[in-house]
């Protein structure tokens, strides 16, 4: 297990290095949906590399099969039905007025991305949400940016664009009612909704 994790880290690092070289951007820019402007070319580059790098990422997912006996024998449905582990974590949270992913979120999403990449029959719908503060239109755009941030990580891990759909609900569908910091924090989120065909 430990060995696998270490190996995986190295492989991801390798993949990142390749992509960074390829499109002359940095990892920080890739994961930063809301930070300093990067030019459109670099942004497009990320998406392209995400899909063209699919073969590499699938290789990674092969390694994923070594993630314990039980899992290697499981089909996609059984894995999604597990109540523990990164795959069971299907809500990603954000700071106010931000689409930036935390490093914990990125780790979780890397597992999701590898899973999607390695299971062609799986598709995932990313539902972006915002808290109630400010204008509704801005918030639905913010939800869209959050879903796009998550999508980029999944594609980067080799998920194909056909498997990943994004939709923003803005502040229309709060997870928790109320006008408290706690409710707002729960509502600034992207939910991953899986479908197995």
């Amino acid at each position, binding site marked *: 297990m430990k060995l696998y994790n270490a190996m995986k880290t190295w492989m991801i690092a390798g993949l990142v290095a390749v992509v960074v070289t390829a499109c002359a951007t940095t990892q920080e820019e890739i994961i930063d949906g*809301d930070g300093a402007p990067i030019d459109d070319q670099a942004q497009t580059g990320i998406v392209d590399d995400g899909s063209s790098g699919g073969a590499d990422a699938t290789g990674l997912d092969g390694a994923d099969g070594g993630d314990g006996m039980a899992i290697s024998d499981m089909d996609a449905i059984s894995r999604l039905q597990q109540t523990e582990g990164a795959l069971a974590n299907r809500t990603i949270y954000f700071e106010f007025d931000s689409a930036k992913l935390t490093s914990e979120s990125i780790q979780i999403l890397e597992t999701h991305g590898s899973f999607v990449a390695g299971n062609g029959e799986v598709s995932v719908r990313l539902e972006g949400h915002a808290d109630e503060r*400010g204008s509704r239109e801005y918030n639905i755009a913010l939800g869209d940016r959050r879903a796009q941030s998550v999508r980029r990580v999944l594609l980067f891990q080799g998920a194909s664009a056909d498997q990943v759909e994004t939709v923003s609900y803005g502040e229309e569908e709060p997870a928790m009612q109320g006008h408290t910091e706690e409710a707002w924090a729960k509502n600034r989120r992207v939910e991953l909704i899986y479908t197995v065909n």
Partner: protein
Amino acid sequence: MKQLITYLLAGLLWVMPVLANAALTIEITGGVEGALPIAVVPFDTSRLSSKLPVDIAGIVASDLNRSGVLKSMERTRLPANPHYSNQVQYARWRTAGQDYLVVGRVLEKSPGLYNIEFQLLDVLKQKQLLGRSMPAKKRNLRSRAHQISDFIYEQITGTRGAFNTRIAFVRAQKDAARKYVLQVADTDGFNAQNVLESDEPIMSPSWSPDGKSLAYVSFENERPEIFIQHLATARRSKVAGFRGLNSAPSWSPDGKFLALVLSKDGSPDIYTLNTATKRLKRLTTHRSIDTEPVWASDGRTIIFTSDRAGSPQLYRIDVGGGKPKRVTFEGRYNTAASLSPDGKFIAMVHGERGQYKIAQYERETGNLTVLTDSSLDESPSFSPNGKMVLYASTRGNNGFLYAVSIDGRAKHKLSDQAGDIREPVWGPFESK
């Protein structure tokens, strides 16, 4: 096909031309110093074959009160009950402190067919300023009453009245069969009619300049898509259903284009759509959020919200394209622009220290005036005469509609018995 997480969305929705009669009630929350005193005497209905379903003088008095410019005398304090100008003893009204007096009567031409007559009198000059006779049917009595308010308001202030116009808004109802309803109502909140009912969110209503259609966003297909619906016939069509975001439709002043927000090319950007040719033109290309486009009344520029400088601010861009110019600089959160009809003012959501209020920005001077005092205010919308701003405010678990005069002095609430009301938009004048 095995679905792990199934969305049991019937996808059912109702599109409707009309009906329903849920009423909002008005509550004046802010009085105004210096408002001109006017007395509106109940109209004579004694010669009608049956009781009138509508209190015309009551509607007029309430309309004028809401403007903040006029203050109508409480009915119980009226010193007399005249119905014709020649019955008026001006001294009594002067003693009662009134500048203006309105008298009137309703006559019946045939059952259900009326003639409403009214006179606006100047108490100090002891003369008639305005007299009108207007035909009415039972079903348009309320509308006629609002028209009377418009006549009186314009005669006294010189500004066209906007009482006889309509507003659109979205109502969310927790335990109802259909959770979201798009409604159109009179400006006093009465006569609410359903336009669309859906199990999924409805957002962003925008009036066509002729007042006959609404554009809006509906999630009925589990994602935001833009529709246009003709109000009288309920005929509608989908005009944008691209991958990603389809949001914030806004009609051009000539009615030929919609400005809208799409994220199909990456980030949310402003586009214009020619509704006849379906030709789409991209206006902004920045990777930031660009949203909430609204047209200047000359149709040449669009004001929109962007966070390209790190926090959301208002910008303007030529509809032919080019580089956007920043409009607002005060504070870290300025969104949801609504332009006054003369283009001189922008109403917007202004966020400061975690409070979101409606503010008015004067473009020439750069002066920013905060108009409201709550903390979760949104969706400002100018009245077509530019004198009031309609907005939504969240209090407790529900949203309510309010209107505030542009000087911030008069404010009233359109309160409601059921549901969470949001995204009000004030419709255009009816063509004369």
